[in-house]
């Protein structure tokens, strides 16, 4: 079943008129369409400025899209009135990139993790306390740490707290926006393992946003590659890695550093002028699309 449907999503940021400057617009997300099936993890990859984060935020309406359609369980998210949107967010949660700025430094961990429950009026005090303990355990933290502040935790532990908060309302859909890119390699591996375990145990559907292709390779069933606001290639992970069709995807893959000193690497460079920016996605193989 389709859980999330995104159609022709577009977001343009306007720059207001300034001194000697006419107002203008930058299209950051440009006619993006994709589906996410229930239980699936879709990887959204691209370099900085490609529009992947904006796409994720537009789905949750943390940023209002300029045009296009977002459907969650068949319902039009953009048509939701504020109250309905808030209710919908119980089911759609997000883990942000930077655990140093996504947690309020003046709130204790128990208050951070319980905040979604308070906002949605779930449980009484003792019920919430028990739920916080349960959530902290779920993400591999000691419930006894609940009375501390974010500053007492390392980056990896903070990201675990952010994950606990995102899971507090039992969402069915989780957006993970570069959840490990600010962490050390060994900590990255631990947090990725946690996310994969939780996805399985809680039957989560995920949109995994990352710039590191190596990360998405192991966790995503399908990939969408974004370049300058558009999806240029989309397909099963193995197909995209094994036989990339778009020149940009090929260049990205060839730039991945290979941890093997004996490997001969050949770079494929990407000339922007060589591709048609507005080419539509065409079917290249089973469920494998590329804008060529």
């Amino acid at each position: 079943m389709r859980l999330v449907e995104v159609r022709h999503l577009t977001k343009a940021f306007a720059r207001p008129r300034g001194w000697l400057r006419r107002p203008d617009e930058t299209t950051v997300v440009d006619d993006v369409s994709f589906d996410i099936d229930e239980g699936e993890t879709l990887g959204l990859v691209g370099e900085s400025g490609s529009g992947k984060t904006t796409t994720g935020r537009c789905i949750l309406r943390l940023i209002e899209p300029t045009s296009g359609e977002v459907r969650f369980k068949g319902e039009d998210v953009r048509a939701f009135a504020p109250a309905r949107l808030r209710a919908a967010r119980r089911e759609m949660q997000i883990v942000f990139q930077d655990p140093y700025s996504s947690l309020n430094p003046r709130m204790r961990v128990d208050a951070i993790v319980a905040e979604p429950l308070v906002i949605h009026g779930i449980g009484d005090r003792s019920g919430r306390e028990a739920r916080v303990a349960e959530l902290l355990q779920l993400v591999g933290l000691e419930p006894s740490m609940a009375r501390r502040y974010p500053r007492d935790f390392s980056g990896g532990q903070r990201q675990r707290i952010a994950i606990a908060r995102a899971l507090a309302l039992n969402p069915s859909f989780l957006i993970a926006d570069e959840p490990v890119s600010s962490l050390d390699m060994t900590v990255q591996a631990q947090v990725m393992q946690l996310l994969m375990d939780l996805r399985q145990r809680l039957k989560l559907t995920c949109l995994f946003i990352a710039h590191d292709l190596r990360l998405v390779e192991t966790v995503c069933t399908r990939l969408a590659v974004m370049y300058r606001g558009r999806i240029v290639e989309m397909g099963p992970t193995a197909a995209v890695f094994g036989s990339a069709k778009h020149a940009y995807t090929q260049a990205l893959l060839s730039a991945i550093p290979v941890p093997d000193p004996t490997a001969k690497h050949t770079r494929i460079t990407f000339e922007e002028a060589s591709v048609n920016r507005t080419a539509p996605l065409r079917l290249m193989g089973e469920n494998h699309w590329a804008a060529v």
Partner: protein
Amino acid sequence: MADPLLDVSDLSIGFACGAVTTPVVHGISFNVGAGETVGLVGESGSGKSLTALALLGLVRPPGRILGGRVQFRGRDLLALSEEELRTIRGADIALVFQEPMTALNPVFTVGDQIAETLVVHGRADWPAARARAIELLDAVRIPDPSRRAHDYPHQLSGGQLQRVLIAMALSCRPSLLIADEPTTALDVRIQADILDLLRDMRAQFGLSLLLITHDLGVVAGMADRVAVMQAGRIVEQAPAKTLFASPQHSYTRELLASIPGDGGTR
């Protein structure tokens, strides 16, 4: 092997807090031969960047060198005066920092900032240094270098700024380049471009390179030898091929295992 270009032995660095000095780098030893590339690998807090600063006499209070020797071309850098160090720093040993966005002065043009290095080290007067800066920008493959030299840092992308820093580092033709996480803040394609550039420059200038990074993938394609740091100690040191083929220390194995994806299979 003849005497190495850089020979670090038993280097300890600590931070003073009141009467207590806490060591953070514990007696590390490694060397870099002429024309050789050594990768210094570790996670945040392992002491790798502090080690780089120590090599250039840039550890500032409350940081303090607690002991050891840093021999460069047979001279002990730790025993030199600030004035003597200044003739070596930026001239014979150059450093490329991690954050290209913050490493440059925003109010001077990139051309002038490259030229300044040459003028400070008495290699050229301003007109000659400015002309040389343009040549260097060309060498690091910045398109249209004579125009770009007049740009301010904010007009360049992160990858281009890193190229400017490399041009600046190479301006006085150093024999040793220390690159501290030179590609960490960059997108993967730009990272590969900068690594290609470093490889080229290494060959062209006959550089020795000390490459400091947390990414074993980056080291694999660049380094002849690798030293792995953990909590202020070098826990393993080996030729790159040996280290990747048969890591001995458990921490090295953990680092290798934490590289995402299925790595070398492509």
